[in-house]
C-alpha cells in the first residue's frame, strides 16, 4: 500500500482555555474522499484552517505528501486548494479576472485555455464577464469551487461546498468531484450537513464532537454500529448526547 497523502497525528487547538480540536488523528489515501461530520462548533472549520496553514496548531502534526506542513508550507499549499460556502472572491473583479489571478498566484501555465476549460466544465459561460459582486450565492459557490479545481490540487478541502446550491447544480458538482477523483486521484476532505450527500460521496466518515473523534468508518459501518436506520439518526443521536 502506498503511504497516505494526508496524515494528521494528535492534532489539537486551544483558543485560550477553550479546546476547539482535541487530539484528533486521521489519514486520507490517494483518491479517497473522507467526510468530516459533526454538529456546529465541533471543530471542523478549525481543523480545515490548520490544514491550510491559516491557524497554528497547539500540538500535533500535519503531514501531506510525506512532508511536514510547518516546514514545507509552500510546497504543500501549491498542491492543495479549498472551497467553502463561506468564502468569496474579490467582488470588484469579474469572474474571469478572478480565475486568472488565482491561476497566476499558483504559477499555472496556459492560463487562458485553463480558464476557458474550467468555465465550460462548471457551466459559468453566461456570467464569466460579470462582476463577482453581482453573482447569486449559488454562482459564487460554483466560482469558488472552480478556483479550487483550477489549480489542479492533489488534495481538496471542502467546507460545506454545496450548502447554497440548488439540487440540480449540487448534483452536477458532486459528479464533477467524483469524475476528478477518478481521473486524477484527487483526495478530498469534506464537510456537509446533508446526510444523503455524505453517504453518497464519502468512502469513509469521521464523526467529530467537541473536538474529538467519536466515530469512524464507512457510512454503513457507523449506521450499523450505532444501531440506527441511517446516518441522519446517528447524527441526531450523537449530537444530542
Amino acid at each position, binding site marked *: 500500500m502506498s503511504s497516505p497523502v494526508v496524515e494528521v497525528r494528535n492534532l489539537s487547538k486551544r483558543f485560550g482555555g477553550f479546546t476547539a480540536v482535541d487530539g484528533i488523528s486521521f489519514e486520507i489515501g490517494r483518491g479517497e474522499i473522507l467526510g468530516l461530520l459533526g454538529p456546529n462548533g465541533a471543530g471542523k472549520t478549525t481543523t480545515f484552517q490548520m490544514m491550510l496553514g*491559516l491557524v497554528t496548531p497547539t500540538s500535533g502534526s500535519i503531514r501531506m505528501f510525506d512532508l511536514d506542513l510547518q516546514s514545507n508550507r509552500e510546497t504543500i*499549499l501549491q498542491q492543495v486548494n479549498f472551497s467553502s460556502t463561506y468564502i468569496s472572491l474579490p467582488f*470588484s*473583479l469579474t469572474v474571469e479576472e478572478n480565475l486568472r489571478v*488565482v491561476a*497566476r*498566484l*499558483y504559477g499555472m501555465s496556459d492560463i487562458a485555455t485553463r480558464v476557458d476549460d474550467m468555465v465550460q466544465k462548471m457551466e459559468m459561460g453566461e456570467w464569466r464577464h460579470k462582476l463577482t459582486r453581482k453573482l447569486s450565492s449559488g454562482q459564487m459557490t460554483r466560482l469558488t469551487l472552480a478556483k479550487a479545481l483550477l489549480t489542479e490540487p492533489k488534495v481538496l478541502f471542502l467546507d460545506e461546498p454545496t450548502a447554497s446550491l440548488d439540487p440540480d447544480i449540487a448534483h452536477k458538482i458532486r459528479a464533477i468531484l467524483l469524475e476528478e477523483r477518478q481521473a486524477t486521484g484527487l483526495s478530498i476532505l469534506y464537510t456537509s450537513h446533508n446526510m444523503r450527500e455524505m453517504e453518497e460521496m464519502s468512502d469513509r466518515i469521521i464523526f467529530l464532537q467537541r473536538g474529538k473523534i467519536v466515530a469512524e468508518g464507512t457510512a454503513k459501518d457507523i449506521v450499523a454500529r450505532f444501531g440506527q436506520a441511517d446516518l441522519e439518526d446517528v447524527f441526531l443521536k450523537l449530537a444530542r448526547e
Partner: protein
Amino acid sequence: MAYHRIAALVIRHLYLYRRSLPRVMEIIYWPFLDLVVWGFITVYLATFQGQMPAVVTFLLGALILWDVLFRSQQGITISFLEEIWARNLMNLFASPLTPSEFLAATMVMSLFKVTAVSVVMSLCAWLFYGYNVFIIGLWLMPFIANLVLTGWIIGVFTTSLIMRFGQEAEVLAWSMVFLFQPISCVFYPMDVLPAWLKGVAAVNPAAHVFEGMRGLLATHTAPLTNLGLASGLNLLYLGAVVLWFHHTFNVCKERGSLVRVGE
C-alpha cells in the same frame, strides 16, 4: 520569493483600479486638489516676497514631497485593506503566497501610486504656477527614494496594527501618517521645534529629508549629511517593522484571527 505570486497580486490590484473611479480619484483628483489649494496660498504669500524670500519654492516643493510619503504609505496600507474588504485574505494565505511576497506586492503598488501622484502634481504645479519641481535638481531622486521608504515604514507598521486589532484600527490607514507630520518638519525648519520635540524629530528620517531640501534650496549645500542620516534611519526602521509584521502575522495565526480580520 516567487516573482509570479507578487505579479499575480499586482495584476489583481490593477484590475481593481482599472474600473474604479474612487480609486483613480485617490491618485489623481485629491493630489490635484491639494496642489491647487496650496498653490493659491503660495501665490498669496508670494505677494509679500520681501519679507518671506523663497517661500514659493519651499511650500510647493514640500507639499509635493509630503504627498510622496503619504501616497507611499497608502500604497501599502490600502492594498492590505482592499484584501480585507474583499474578504480575500483567506484565499491568499491558504495559497503558497508568503507574507514577504505579500509585502513586496504592496510595495510595488506603493511605487505605482507614488509615480502617478508625483507626475500629476509636478505637472499641475508647472502648468498652474510655473513651478518646476526639478529646480531641486538631481537630489530630488534620493529625497524621493527616502520618503518612499519612510512611507513604507509607516505603511507596514499601520498594516500590522490593523491585522492585529481589526476593523477598529482601519482609520489608522488615513490618520497615522499625520501623527508624523509635525515631527517631519515639512513646512518649517527643525529649529523652530522646542528642544524635546527636536530630539524626536532627529530620529525621524523624513525630517532629515525636508531639512536637506531646505538647505539645498536656501544655501545650495549638498545635503549629504541629511541624506546619510535619513537612509540609515530608514533602513533600520524598515527592517524592524518588517520583522514586526511577520511576528504579528504569526500571532494572528496562533489566535486564529488571521482569517477573521474585518469580520
